[in-house]
Every structure is written in structure tokens, then in C-alpha cells.
């Protein structure tokens, strides 16, 4: 689950990390009031959307008066902001963060993510802050220093020091800098983050170290023990269909094609998309109904697939283990009747109770095409939609 910048900074402050003073506003009047309350001539107005790349897209503006602040906010609020990360349509800006400006001495980069090879979180820092870190990683990988984080104790002091010396942070700022790095690691562990990025992490001319930006993603599996963070979810920023799927216990990702897929298991669901493509078709989605889908879940899954107007046919591919094929077949029949499904439907059932499942489909009176295996299923659905 992604957090907004202002939410990430709230979490940073809760863990003792310094951020600029800032106020969230939803309209021009709110922005004027925020500017006045901050009392800093130089201020920044920042669009709050989940996508990165806001700066280059015009979503971050330096201002020097309440009028300028209001004008900058009016240029963002209620309009889509299109960045390199959020596709051709962009994301509607519904709120802005107004922050005090700071006398910046130097910009650094800091991030933490789980390193799958080391199997622990890793701190990554670079003296080339503010830049696109993926570009730095590509062109100058030695410029990124990496220090593993102990998943129980956090970032050991010596590792924090080593990062600070490696970055060449001036002596007067070194202690505060090391403390900030340790604080970031602590926040990452305490909040069960899967990604944290501070770009830039700045030093000021009066030797403070401040998280000027903040990006944070919380591990979805850990939300069960973070009710406070769960309350920060902003469904406006998420794909509406994916939100509904999640609430129904389904795992769904929308794609560009026209063949809907309903599969049990993530690996088999991906393989089903792959085989559709190999046979010349284009999948319209990834959908995993999980290990024990009910009739209601199958119905919801069909509804979600059919919401995509591009869908011209549906392929159901079930390998029953825990899930019984007769239960799935009944779900498919019920859903097809309830929804008055008109597009071609190819169903492949295998595994536990497959004979009973196939019988239910055959006796349903519906025009469901049965397939014997994955190749047969892919061939039939691609033919049906072309």
C-alpha cells in the first residue's frame, strides 16, 4: 500500500526524523492560510499523488507569496498531473502539501528496500540526490553505497558511520546524518515498509539534516498489524477495479488485451496469460481466485472481468487441488446465468472432482466450450474472439 508524501512524512516525524514544516490543503483558500501559518517567505507547493516524477511534470512549485502559492495550487488542483510514472491519463490532483522553504546546502539520496538476494532490508545512499536514481544506478553504480539492515536490531552504528564517511558528509553534519539513516531504518522496520525513499535527503546551511521528500510503501501482508497505517489508504489513487477485487479476496491486474482470464493460483494465472499470447491472443487481465473460491467469488470475478469493455471472450482455467472442480463449475454456471453472459466462454477444469465439474457444465444448457488441456483452451478462446 502506497502512502502519500505528507503521510510518509508524518510517519518519519513519528519516528523522530526531521522533515520541513508543512500543511495539507485542498483548495486555494486553504493554501493561502497554510502559507500564512508557515510564515516562511520561501515555500513549496507540492501535488499529492501516488506517482513519482512530480517535479519534472510541474507538480512541485517554489513560491514567495500567498498569491503565488494560491496560483500554483490552482494550476494543480482538480487537474490530472501526468508524470513519467502514471501513464497517458495521469492522476487527478486532489490535495497539495504546502511546506516551508529551507536553505539547502546539499542534496543526497537515501532509500531502503528488501534485498531479495541478501534476504534483509538494505539501505542505499548516494551523494547524487535529487537525480533519477535509476539513471545513477545505470550510469554510475559505484555512486550508490549499500549497507544491509539487521531485521531485528536495525542499522548498526558502524554501518551508518560507514555510509556517512562514504558520502563525504561534512564533519559538522555527520552525527545528525548518521542518526537520520538509523532513524529511517527504524521507521522501515517499525512500520513494516517494503519501500522507503527520501530523494532528496538534504543538509542545510545551518547544519541540519532533513527529509525534504518522502515516499513509502507498506507491505500489504503486514497491514493486519498496522490499523493506523491502514487508515491512510487513499482509494482515489488506486485502480477502482483492483480495489473491488481486493475487497472480494481476488488478486486482479488489468491488462490491454481482450481475453478475460479466471484462474486459480498466481503461477498458473500468469502461465495462462502467457499461453494466450503464444497462441496469438492478448489477455485482458491477471485474475487469481485463490485456493478456495466460493460461488460468490466466481461471480464477482466474472463481473470484474466483464467491466472491461474490451473483453471479447473469457477463459476459465482451474486446476483443482483444494478447490473442487464441481464447486467451480457450479459457480461458473450460476454466474453465467445471473449475468446473462453473451461472450464466448471456454472452460478448462482439471483435478479434484473434474468429472462432476464437466458434467455440470455439459448439462447446464449454456453455450460453454469445454477444453481438455491448456493448449486446447488457448486455441479455442483465441479462435472464438478473432
Amino acid at each position: 500500500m502506497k502512502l502519500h508524501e505528507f503521510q510518509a512524512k508524518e510517519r518519519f516525524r513519528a519516528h523522530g526524523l526531521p522533515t520541513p514544516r508543512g500543511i495539507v490543503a485542498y483548495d486555494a483558500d486553504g493554501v493561502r492560510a497554510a502559507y500564512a501559518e508557515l510564515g516562511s517567505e520561501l515555500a513549496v507547493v507540492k501535488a499529492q499523488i501516488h506517482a513519482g516524477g512530480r517535479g519534472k511534470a510541474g507538480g512541485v512549485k517554489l513560491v514567495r507569496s500567498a498569491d503565488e502559492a494560491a496560483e500554483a495550487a490552482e494550476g494543480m488542483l482538480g487537474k490530472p498531473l501526468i508524470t513519467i510514472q502514471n501513464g497517458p491519463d495521469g492522476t487527478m490532483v486532489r490535495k497539495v502539501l504546502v511546506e516551508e522553504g529551507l536553505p539547502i546546502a546539499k542534496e543526497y539520496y537515501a532509500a531502503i528496500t528488501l534485498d531479495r538476494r541478501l534476504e534483509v532490508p538494505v539501505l542505499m545512499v548516494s551523494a547524487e540526490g535529487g537525480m533519477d536514481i535509476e539513471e545513477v544506478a545505470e550510469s554510475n553504480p559505484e555512486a550508490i553505497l549499500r549497507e544491509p539492515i539487521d531485521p531485528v536490531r536495525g542499522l548498526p552504528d558502524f554501518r551508518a558511520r560507514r555510509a556517512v564517511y562514504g558520502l563525504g558528509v561534512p564533519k559538522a553534519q555527520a552525527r545528525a546524518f548518521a542518526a537520520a539513516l538509523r532513524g529511517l531504518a527504524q521507521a522501515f522496520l517499525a512500520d513494516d515498509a517494503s519501500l522507503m525513499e527520501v530523494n532528496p535527503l538534504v543538509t542545510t546551511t545551518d547544519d541540519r539534516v532533513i527529509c525534504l521528500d518522502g515516499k513509502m510503501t507498506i507491505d500489504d501482508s503486514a497491514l493486519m498489524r498496522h490499523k493506523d497505517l491502514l487508515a491512510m489508504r487513499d482509494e482515489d489513487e488506486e485502480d477502482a477495479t483492483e480495489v473491488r477485487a481486493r475487497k472480494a479476496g481476488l488478486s486482479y491486474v488489468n491488462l490491454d488485451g481482450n481475453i478475460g482470464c479466471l484462474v486459480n493460483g498466481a503461477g498458473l494465472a500468469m502461465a495462462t496469460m502467457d499461453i494466450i499470447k503464444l497462441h496469438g491472443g492478448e489477455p485482458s487481465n491477471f485474475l487469481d481466485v485463490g485456493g478456495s473460491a466460493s460461488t460468490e467469488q466466481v461471480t464477482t470475478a466474472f463481473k470484474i472481468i466483464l467491466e472491461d469493455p474490451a473483453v471479447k471472450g473469457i477463459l476459465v482455467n482451474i486446476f483443482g487441488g483444494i478447490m473442487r472442480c464441481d464447486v467451480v463449475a457450479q459457480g461458473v454456471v450460476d454466474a453465467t446465468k445471473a449475468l446473462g453472459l453473451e461472450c464466448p466462454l471456454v472452460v478448462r477444469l482439471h483435478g479434484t472432482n473434474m468429472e462432476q465439474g464437466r458434467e455440470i457444465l455439459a448439462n447446464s444448457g449454456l453455450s460453454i466450450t469445454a477444453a481438455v488441456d491448456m493448449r486446447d483452451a488457448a486455441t479455442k478462446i483465441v479462435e472464438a474472439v478473432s
Partner: protein
Amino acid sequence: MSILVGKETRLITQGITGEYGRLHTLACREYGTNIVGGVTPGRGGSDVEGIPVYDTVSEAREKTGANATMIFVPAAFAADAVEEAADAGLELIVCITEGIPALDEARMKRLVTAAGVRMIGPNCPGIISPGEQCKVGIMPGFIHAPGKIGVVSRSGTLTYEAVWQLTELGLGQSTCIGIGGDPVIGTTHIDALKLFQEDDGTDAILMMGEIGGTAEEEASQFVKDHVTKPVVGFVAGRTAPPGKRMGHAGAIIAGGKGTAIEKMEAMRAAGIAVAESPADLGSTMAEALAARA
């Protein structure tokens, strides 16, 4: 012959009184697995269809001589269950539970590594050795057949698909391991490859991966350097878009890395026969075996 589980396995189930724990424990027993007990705190002294239930893993081990455990406890308590099993001195932990926080998994991994305990999973279907009638997990037993193919995979149902294709072609399995789809797992592809290479009962290996991370690339290098048996590979997710989690927590193409195409190239470069289509998992193995014969 087989790896990790077989006739000598004496299994307990942690979370045996829950719906899934009970269902699958009984299915394992029916398949032939030697189930010696179960653990649910607070239910000690009761039984599940004749299987004795204990309050703690250490008590279960003492009373039954168990050497392996299958974990079904909910995600929030799974890390604790793993630690309890390792502390009690069990040799093999098969963690079926899905949805465990990644940092808990990192802590679990450290703990079992330090204790020298083998863990399979989490978020996996488990492990089965058909020739020894030993099933420790949630896979449907009847699709398997005794034989000499070792299977290792990050998926659940896709593994069943592969196993069924093998069985249909008369290619039985020595052991099939589902290692799980999460970013941090106990037993890796490389661990399984090493065990299969050393196992006299295994003639060839089917290795199935999916997008995300670099485990398949590292495993391919290992095959190139250390595996002399034929290896067939498959990678799910060549049509997956970047930046989207595809069901499994570990199945995500991040920063342009971890694509199926890269992984398949690494496999080919290591001399692995790659099945292009998931419909050809069995036939690619049959061809690889014929080429060696």
C-alpha cells in the same frame, strides 16, 4: 529414493485444529504420510480423528518422536510457530501459511539458518515423495506417480499442471517441492537443485520459476557449474506488466529487472531446456530425457 521427506518422516501439524490444518492433515494421512501428532495451544489432550493434539511443539516432539512439522497457523502467528518448531529441534519445517509479512520472513530465515533447520516455504504447497507415499502439504496426491523426475517450483497450481503432464507421459516423480512465491523463502531453487543432483533416485529435474528477483538466474548459474543431470525450465509471467504484483508477493518486475525473458535467457545459457509454453512442460522433459539416452 527421494529428498527431504519419505518413509522416515514423522510429521506433526501446527494448527491442526483449524479448518485447513485438519483437512490437509487427514488428506496427508490418507496418502500414506506418517502423521504422529498435532499442536494447537490450548487444545492439548484432545485428538483429531485419532491424531493426538499437544499444547506445545516440544511436548509433541517428546511424546511422538516427530522430526518434521507442517505449519498452517495464521500469518500473524506464523513466525512464532516457525521459531517454536526450530527451538523444539525438529529437522524439517514446511510452512504452508501465506500472507506472512516480508520482515517476519527475513527474521524466520535468519533464525532457521542459524539453527541449521531446513525450512520449505512459506506460502507454498509443500513437498511430496510419491514413491515413499509421503505427502507434506496441500497438493492433490492423485496426480503424482512414483518415478525419477525431481520438480522444484515457486508456484502451486502451476506445479500441479506440470506434475500432471509428467504423469500423463509416464514420467513419475522422485520428489516435488513447492518452494513458495514470496520474496524471502527457506529452501531456494539452488538448495533443491543441489539435493536433486545428489539424489540417486532422481534422473532429471524440472525447475519452474516466475517473474521477480534473480533466483532463476542464480539457479541457472548453479546448474551450469554443478548439475550434470538434464534440467528443464519454465518461467511464468512473460506477459506480466512491469511494476505490478502478480498475486505472489515476490512476483513483480521492479525497476525493469526480473523479467521472464531475462530468466529464460539465463536458463538457456546454462544449457537448460526451456519450455516456451506451459502446455509443453511434460513433453520438453520427455525430449530432454530422449536426447540424453
